């Protein structure tokens, strides 16, 4: 089997590998090097954008496992982020836990919350489940506001700057490294979770839950596992978000964020780890474009134009993707790759 005459996989491990060719390993290392060198050259603003993208990617990975792979649609993801974020913020601020302990605790708390609100998924699906998760978001946020003595209620809660092993993560660059390491690990984990027995069970449940159950897949166990895993991701993302701002407030988890995470999944392409990254990055870039265009529009048209532009542009992007590119950017990306791979015989691109 020579090099240069195609890719040949001689055993199962090679066939299942995430990075199958030397070229892919090369691209991976180049990407990682660029990622970890970029704080040296970028401004604080760019680092903030990249950090926010990283947090969104983590969150969307969770939603992708839950919605994209297991088919359990959740529009309460920001609520579960709030559970994780607040848990780790409270542990750090009130009980003096170190950050590296509080983060997994937050993730676990979010996972348990997901588990509880996932219980209705055993009886209901589709639209009913959507409503249940929307309700979950509002009930979580309301509970946080009611528990004023612990969470600070509407006044918010200030969170100490996280430290890991003596390093204070006070600069944007430090925090960027933290988020990027976790994002890369989360991506690797997500990619692997969907290749396990559980991941295959999720796909079977998504494609037809009754058929899956008949084949011996325990819906009870796997649906709740999907909720748990998805919400653990949300908890990590939420806790990173709150520690980044050193302040916890329910305003950081608006209902529309829950919708946008699903939007990211649709724009990126459901049921694909790469798609989750594409979607999160694309919608965050759109956010930045809107933020940049906002002041110009406000001056030119009306003061409220900026706020409405954000809503209208996001809504239109999702509508356009659903109508014209329902399989998302990830599918388009695969088509482009296939085009170049088959060139010059690319008259027939197989899907």
């Amino acid at each position, binding site marked *: 089997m020579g090099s240069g005459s195609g890719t040949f996989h001689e055993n199962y491990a090679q066939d299942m590998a995430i990075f199958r060719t030397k070229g892919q390993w090369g691209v991976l290392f180049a990407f990682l090097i660029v990622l970890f060198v970029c704080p040296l050259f970028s401004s604080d603003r760019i680092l903030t954008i990249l950090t926010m993208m990283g947090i969104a990617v983590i969150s969307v990975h969770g939603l992708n496992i839950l*919605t994209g792979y297991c088919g359990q*649609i959740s*529009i309460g993801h920001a609520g579960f982020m709030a559970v994780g974020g607040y848990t780790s913020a409270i542990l750090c601020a009130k009980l003096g836990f170190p950050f590296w302990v509080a983060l997994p605790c937050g993730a676990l708390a979010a996972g348990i919350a997901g588990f509880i609100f996932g*219980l*209705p998924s055993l*009886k*209901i699906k*589709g*639209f*009913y489940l*959507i*409503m*249940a998760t*929307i*309700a*979950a978001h*509002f*009930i979580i946020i*309301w509970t946080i*506001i*009611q528990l*004023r003595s612990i969470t600070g*209620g*509407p006044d918010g809660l200030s969170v100490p700057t996280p430290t890991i092993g003596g390093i204070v993560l006070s600069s944007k660059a430090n925090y960027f490294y933290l988020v990027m390491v976790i994002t890369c690990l989360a991506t690797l984990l997500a990619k692997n979770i969907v290749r396990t027995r559980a991941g295959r069970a999720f796909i079977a449940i998504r494609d*037809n839950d*009754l*058929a899956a159950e*008949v084949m011996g897949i325990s819906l009870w166990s796997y649906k709740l596992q999907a909720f748990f895993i998805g919400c653990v991701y949300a908890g990590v993302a939420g806790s990173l978000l709150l520690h980044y701002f050193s302040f916890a407030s329910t305003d950081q988890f608006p209902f*529309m964020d829950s*919708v946008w995470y*699903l*939007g990211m999944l*649709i724009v990126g392409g*459901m049921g694909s780890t790469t798609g989750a990254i594409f979607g999160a990055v694309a919608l965050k870039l759109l956010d930045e474009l809107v933020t940049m265009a906002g002041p110009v529009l406000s001056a030119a048209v*009306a*003061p*409220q*134009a900026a*706020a*409405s*532009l*954000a*809503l*209208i542009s*996001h*809504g*239109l992007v*999702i*509508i356009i993707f*659903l*109508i014209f590119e*329902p399989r998302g950017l990830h599918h388009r990306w695969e088509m482009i790759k296939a085009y170049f791979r088959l060139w010059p015989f690319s008259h027939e691109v197989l899907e």
Partner: protein
Amino acid sequence: MTFFLQLVVTGLALGMIYALIAIGFVIILKCSEVFNIAQGHFVLIGGYLGYTFLVPLGLPIWAALGMAIATAIIMGLAIERLTLRPLLGQPVLAVVMVTIALATVLGGLATLLWGAEYKAYHGLLPTITLKIGTISIPSESLIGLIVSVICVVLLMLLFRYTKIGLAMRATAEDLAVVQSVGIRATTVYAVSWVIACVVGVIGGILLGGVSGANMELAEIGLKAFAVVLLGGVNSIGGAIVGGIILGMLENVAAGYLDPLLPGGGLAKVFPFIVMIIVLIFRPYGLFGLTRIERI
């Protein structure tokens, strides 16, 4: 006791408006199996349209209502043709997401056109005062009650005696049969969206007359979901009963429990608690059809 009855009566009027809005949702769902998350935003647009026609344009109430309904009809037709028709036959998530996206676009338009500000127009709707025993019924609630009842009766007549109403009922029953006898399903879908827009806009004007128009009107949509889940998503009668129950429960619970809870705002989260309880214990609501699935 008077306090309790007062809460029940205002709750009844509020519940009737919820029921009206929820009916729009149920009609779309029955005809085209689309879960319309944007229903609350029709209410929002309605509230602001009412303001525009009544205050800056200074139209009389009947003309304002007519203009608002005309706008709603155009809006319904445009929404159905541009966003829902290309997605016919797509999975639930795609259709629900497109209506969510629609909701944000409508919210954005409302922000752009009316600046997301509070616009009051109390007192422009006609006033009627009624007192039964010791309970006085607020005029706005009474108007809401009357208009909602008229709308519901008109819809019932439409479904019973007109050709299109019959076609809509038939489509809800069995799409394949309807198509085989030559009824255009797309027309039925368009009409169902128009009706949903119209009842949403009327509900918006009624609620705007009570508390003024602001962006929070869109949240009524979320209450309408609780109503339809309680009543059963595919039952118009269920929507009415669910609306009345939820309106009363919400008013009574908020009246008695809000003073006890420090943050208040129970009325806001109450529909969601009802929703979760219904979904766990009776997922198909009071009058909904239980779905039986085969592989």
